[in-house]
């Protein structure tokens, strides 16, 4: 049986349509691959850092001017952060006085970038030969960049790390959890289990849906106007950031908790009521435990979102230069995404790879959180 020309045309149209769909998927997937290859490609060099072997002469003048410790031709090749520690080192080890040691020192970021072959390394021409020679002689070598994980931000690119930002992120996240999860879950319980069906309840519901759609930056304006200007929370503090993100996360948690509560079948509530459980007992003994996986998943996703959020934190001032982990929730702090933003606006080339490395750390944490949420949802998925 041969197909009529019209039918053939229709089949061609059918194939075309399917092809469009496939193209869209492939486009998105290609972007994803391109994106990760690009970011990882940029980030990986940052995990290696050049170290340089230089003669360090300890003498009286070093105490007053650490620059004196190192011969002039090497001075620019060594990180200032290394030089700064020499005075203290001498105090701790007086026996070193008037000796000269060959020591491995953190190399300057220009040396590092130059050897990595990055454009815009900024190493002056006169040093290039020396550096290449030293590298061939094994006097410069690459080591794993532990500083990146154990230090805070620094003006010296080779010495900058994510620790302070990570601590800030954790602190902010803890505040966000402490505020948004209880309030969000209680709100959802109120709306699903106790609220009378009246105008006021409907207003709350509409309001929560709208809150979920409000751009995050407006939460920043709220945080600035209410928490900082009215309530007197210190600017740039983890508290200000945490509270702002808590309000932003609230609707996400409320909505997912409500969905989880709603998925608990009515028959379970009926059963418990029929046995003489009070409404509070029904919720606490039956509904909440059953909804728990859903609430957990929703909260993790909401908190991951909060953890990756930057805009509202910029507004409440959490982009300050923070070299050390904050001591309390009232101290100025920064968070990982804000650190990424700060580094990305630095012009020094070494910061670019650090930005990418920071992004990689951030993405690892966030994607693990999301994967955890997906895993939990799959594991506890209950069909009624």
């Amino acid at each position, binding site marked *: 049986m041969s197909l009529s020309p019209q039918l053939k045309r229709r089949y061609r149209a059918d194939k075309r349509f399917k092809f469009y769909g496939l193209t869209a998927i492939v486009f998105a997937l290609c972007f994803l691959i391109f994106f990760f290859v690009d970011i990882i490609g940029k980030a990986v060099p940052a995990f290696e850092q050049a170290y340089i072997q230089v003669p360090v002469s300890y003498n009286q003048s070093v105490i007053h001017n650490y620059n004196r410790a190192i011969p002039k031709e090497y001075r620019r090749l060594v990180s200032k952060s290394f030089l700064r520690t020499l005075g203290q080192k001498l105090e701790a080890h007086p026996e070193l006085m008037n000796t000269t040691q060959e020591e491995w020192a953190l190399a300057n970021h220009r040396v590092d970038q130059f050897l990595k072959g990055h454009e815009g390394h900024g190493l002056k021409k006169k040093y290039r030969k020396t550096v290449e020679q030293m590298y061939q002689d094994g006097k410069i070598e690459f080591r794993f960049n532990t500083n990146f994980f154990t230090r805070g931000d620094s003006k010296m690119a080779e010495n900058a790390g994510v620790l302070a930002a990570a601590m800030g992120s954790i602190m902010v996240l803890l505040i966000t959890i402490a505020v948004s999860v209880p309030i969000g879950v209680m709100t959802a319980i109120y709306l699903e289990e106790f609220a*009378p*069906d009246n105008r006021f309840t409907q207003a709350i519901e509409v309001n929560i849906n709208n809150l979920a759609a409000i751009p995050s930056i407006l939460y920043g304006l709220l945080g600035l106007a209410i928490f900082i200007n009215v309530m007197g929370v210190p600017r740039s503090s983890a508290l200000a950031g945490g509270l702002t993100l808590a309000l932003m996360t609230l609707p996400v948690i409320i909505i997912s908790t409500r969905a989880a509560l709603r998925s608990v*079948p009515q*028959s*379970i509530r*009926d*059963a*418990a*009521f*029929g*046995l*003489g*459980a*009070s*409404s509070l*007992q029904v919720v606490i*003994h*039956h509904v909440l435990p*059953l909804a728990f996986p859903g609430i957990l998943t929703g909260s993790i996703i909401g908190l991951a979102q909060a953890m990756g959020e930057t805009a509202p934190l910029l507004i409440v001032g959490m982009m300050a230069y923070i070299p050390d982990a904050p001591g309390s929730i009232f101290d100025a702090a920064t968070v990982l995404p804000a650190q990424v933003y700060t580094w990305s606006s630095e012009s020094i080339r070494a910061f670019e790879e650090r930005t990418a490395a920071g992004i990689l750390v951030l993405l690892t944490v966030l994607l693990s959180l999301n994967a955890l949420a997906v895993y939990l949802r799959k594991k506890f998925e*209950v069909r009624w």
Partner: protein
Amino acid sequence: MSKPKISVSDLKLWYGDHETLHGIDVDFEAKKVTALIGPSGCGKSTLLRCLNRMNDRIVGCRIEGSVLLDGKDINAPDVDVVQLRTHVGMVFQKPNPFPKSIYENIIYAPQIHGMVDKQGMDELVETALRKASIWDEVKDKLHEPGTALSGGQQQRLCIARTIAVKPDVILMDEPCSALDPIATAKIEELIDELKQDFTIIMVTHNMQQAARVSDNTAFFYMGNLIEFGETSTLFSQPQQQQTEDYITGRFG
């Protein structure tokens, strides 16, 4: 007729402005099975839910008239609905065991009502499961989830759970409508046994079931009690034309 266990008089019920029960008068005998039959929306389930005040939770639901349990009005302001429900238990249409172990399902209600201490628990669980004729089937898996049982077993577990509170009255809202005929037969057999200890009031869509298991039958239509009487009489010599039409399948 002996002294009624539950006596309903002139019970009217509104959902918002809509009157769904128009003055029901009916007495439920103690230790008897009474079936409530009638087409969908006739008010039989609504009446059933009035008997342990499950309607309290529905917004805009309002009642008039009285429901006396052992001569005491259950809607009186000093009656606590939670305590009422320990006297009037309920079994639902779909088996709804809690997603906990069989053991926990049984022990839950006695525990929240403080009826049992640690030592008495095992015994209580066994008695309840035995009474619900499911002990032999589950005695080896008491700590497995109740939801893993078959539909009929789940429903008997739900009945056992209700019995564990030692109620006087058990309300059953179409307890077999989600079950296959074999499971249904088992539940019916169970109901037959349970009426020695409990007053049972059941709603059913299945007239044959009403005929099989009940001693008395009440026929409802459009929110009115049309006829109430002994089951065999009602099914062989109904007094009302509407009853005759319904049970002979000539309705509407």
